[in-house]
């Protein structure tokens, strides 16, 4: 039977970085997966929870639960959003005082997969047949590394991309400085962190930087463009789908 998944596009992916989400769809379909996109979905609520407005996140969690009700597996190409779904969504649901929402969320959360988890664990693939003859630096986003805990899966997938040279960068697992509203509330510190991240990337000799999170790529890419460095940012799904142009 053909595997089926529901796609969680993530709000920032849907609105501002559609290429990463389109690549996710194309990749999954090429691998024989039937992808659905529940239209009622919006945001997971992380931005509001992390900014100190957990109650405002309740309607978002409600629409998430309604959108993905009855779905077998839910795949999202984001370590950060998946991390928030796993670690914050239930506590937001509890704040609503709505027991049916709580049980609904409890039932959905274990069925959510980060894209690399789905590829490696559910499909059993590390080689998705991608070709990308470039030097690539991988930025392990904090939330994919320490909240969603995707482990070595992204590296396993990248190492099996034909022609791809994975370059080492100094302090690779150090934060890029984005942190949501941190990037504007503490913009000086955020920029200082970014400066070190950009130094590590540019001195690694990479032509591309990739990550599981478009928000980090927005920060890093914004810095690279500001510096006119010529290094490009692409989501991991774009490399695996072969949609980078």
């Amino acid at each position, binding site marked *: 039977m053909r595997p089926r998944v529901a796609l969680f596009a993530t709000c920032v992916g*849907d609105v501002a970085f559609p290429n990463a989400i389109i690549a996710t769809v194309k990749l999954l379909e090429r691998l024989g997966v039937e992808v659905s996109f529940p239209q009622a979905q919006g945001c997971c609520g992380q931005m509001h929870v992390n900014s100190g407005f957990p109650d405002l996140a309740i309607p978002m969690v409600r629409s998430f639960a309604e959108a993905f009700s009855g779905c077998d597996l839910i795949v999202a190409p984001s370590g950060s959003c998946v991390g928030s779904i796993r670690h914050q969504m239930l506590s937001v649901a509890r704040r609503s005082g709505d027991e049916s929402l709580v049980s609904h969320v409890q039932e959905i959360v274990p069925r959510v997969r980060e894209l690399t988890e789905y590829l490696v664990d559910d499909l059993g693939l590390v080689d998705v047949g991608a070709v990308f003859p470039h030097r690539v630096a991988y930025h392990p986003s904090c939330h994919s590394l320490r909240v969603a805990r995707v482990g070595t899966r992204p590296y396993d997938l990248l190492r099996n991309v034909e022609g791809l040279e994975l370059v080492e960068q100094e302090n690779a697992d150090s934060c890029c400085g984005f942190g949501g509203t941190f990037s*504007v509330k503490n913009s000086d510190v955020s920029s*200082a962190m970014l400066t070190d991240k950009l130094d590590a990337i540019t001195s690694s000799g990479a032509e591309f930087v990739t990550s599981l999170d478009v928000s980090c790529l927005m920060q890093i*890419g914004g810095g690279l463009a500001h510096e006119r460095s010529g290094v490009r940012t692409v989501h991991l799904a774009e490399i695996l789908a072969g949609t980078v142009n």
Partner: protein
Amino acid sequence: MGRAFVGIQPSFPAAAREALKDSQLRTNLAHATGTIRGKRARVTEELPDWEFLREAARGIKQQTLADLADLLVEFEKNAQAAGAIVHWASSAEEAIAVVREVAERHGVESFVKVKSLTTDEIGLNEAMNAVGVDAYETDLAELIVQIANEHPSHVLVPAIHKNRSQIRDLFIEHLGANEDTVDDPAVLASIARAHLRSRFLDAKMAVSGANFAIADTGSLVVVESEGNGRMCLTLPEVLVSIVGIEKIIPSWEDLEVMMQVLPRSSTGERMNPYTTIWTGTAEHDGPAEVHIVLLDNGRSRTLAEPVGRDALMCIRCSACMNVCPVYERTGGHAYGSVYPGPIGAILTPQLLGPGQAETLPYASTLCGACYDVCPVMIDIPSILVHLRATGPHGGTEKAAFAEVARTLSNARGMRRAHRWARFGLPLARLGSALRIGPIRAWSRSRSLPQVPRESFRDWWNTR
């Protein structure tokens, strides 16, 4: 002496902006935190049972917090039986009053000190200085910070913001070192040693904190690396130890776990160099008069917080600040608190109470590195997020987030969000809310993303 420290709370972003201008500070911090980070990683990775030790340490501190009232009384009873005089201080002022009374009764004009965050927290040095009693710091780094008339910038390495040539200059200026002194660590250490030796031998009174207070024996434990603590704790006739009530551990056996996780997490050592444990007084051995001041100073209030109370499990190892990417750039002074870094960002606002240090919970990207290294597994990111939720918010900020929330919770809103993103509307709204012009703040070092004409949803629905 420096000014009193806790209570002055500048906004973190403003203080951080100043700190970031100091390129020497940035270099020193990156080098020092990077070195300690590496050492800690090596000595924790070598232990097959490291994660079990963390869980055990967490369990001990959780039990301590759950039973704190009983454990404190048990500690008091056992310490008194061993000859210690136990005082209870609900505030900094009450703790200072005890030290002052003891100093006056013995007619001392100065005392020596073991490095102690708790005494920094209550501003002891400044308060005693004001009544004519000098406090001499004897930890090398504390001495450096004291003669520089500054405050510690790190829990474990108070002078982490200074490099050796800066220290050499301070020693020439304040300790009478020769003008041609070289910035060799061994030379600098011997200058400090000679200076401190006379302080130890002259001292009639010492003040310390404690790393642990063991309830079932009434003992105090001080963990240090230089031997200055041992001198302070054994040579003077009178000893006053100021101990936060959360420093209790239930039993002597629990110390076994703590003495494994603490050195590996803090200095990256397998074993601590100087561990001094004392139980009341002993005839012809150590101080003849031993005082213990059990300090509350906001801890009971923090203990009443179901989420935030975990901050009281902290054993002050400083691993969280060594891995924190924010701390690594700003250093400790930007936090405006004795307790900087991630633990400071959750501890300081709670110890000080409502209306204080409100920018500290935002001094984090929530990257999670602190949680992964904490030896007692304090979920610092979750507590930061909790403190953001319970703290105050501007009306316009809240209105902007409410608008965004309504937008991002249905399909029609998502399409509107795409139009907004295309035309920068939400950023402008958020901008007026955060009152710092986020577009400007963002654009100083980063280009704004180009939002494509077609959202993902548009693509999906038309393919």
